[in-house]
């Protein structure tokens, strides 16, 4: 559906009624695409724009070649020193049906405060680490 105010503009953004009125607010965004598709540029820039518009934003790099930090404004020489979230944050508990289940041992906000690397727009960055090279776990 064409927005009349932007029709004719070759790069008219958001031309479909993607977010129906009354739909749930957007809070947990995952961005996926082919390597080199610009996924990380979009993720980092979107996160910073949302933060600059006054919202609290967390950024999570779950890519196997993590470089979201650069787009978020970390100096290149700091990227190598970033550590993935330690698996020791997970504790074993039981769910409602009594099944054993791993869960964070602390509230997410505490984990983010302790392990997030704060980036220039106030966005903490967390690295998930690669599933492909995680070894025996």
């Amino acid at each position: 559906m064409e927005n009349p105010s932007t029709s004719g503009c070759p790069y008219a953004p958001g031309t479909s009624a993607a977010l129906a009125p009354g739909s749930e607010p957007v809070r947990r965004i995952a961005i996926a695409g082919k390597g080199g598709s610009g996924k990380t540029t979009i993720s980092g820039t979107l996160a910073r724009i949302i933060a600059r518009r006054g919202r609290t934003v967390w950024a999570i790099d779950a890519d196997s070649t993590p470089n979201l930090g650069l787009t978020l404004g970390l100096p290149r020489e700091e990227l190598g020193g970033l550590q993935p979230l330690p698996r020791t944050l997970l504790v074993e508990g039981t769910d409602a049906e009594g099944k054993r289940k791993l869960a964070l041992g602390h509230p997410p906000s505490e984990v983010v405060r302790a392990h997030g690397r704060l980036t220039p727009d106030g966005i903490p960055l967390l690295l998930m680490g690669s599933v492909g090279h995680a070894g025996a776990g």
Partner: protein
Amino acid sequence: MCRAHAGVRHLLGGLLNEEEEVVVVVDMEAGLEHLSRGTGRGVDTLLVVLEPYYKALETARRATELGRELGIGRVLGIGNKLRGDEDREAVRAYAASHEIPLVGEIPFDEEVLRADRAGRPPIDTPEAPAVQAIGALATALGFPP
């Protein structure tokens, strides 16, 4: 599922459970390896990047299907690196034929390449067309200026 995969999934799932009014942005692998049926429900919006060439579009289509299988409520497309009307129409036609609603269209932008080469973030050039388009994307997602 091996323990390492499960660990990453549980960590991400735990972070997505935050109850405060926090916006979480996750840069994912195309195969959504970090999500499972359980943690996928913690994501309310999956954005798939559609570049106007076949392999990228196919990857985006598979990510769209995976996202839906994982129970993500909203799967939306973003056209990226669009060099003009032909690219835009190609992405729109593909998205329409696979029922992927488009929420944003980002032009090809030399400035993004220059920033990449120089190792600086694109947002340092806020007037760049791609950055402007990502601003419009933020607005479309419910984060107006």
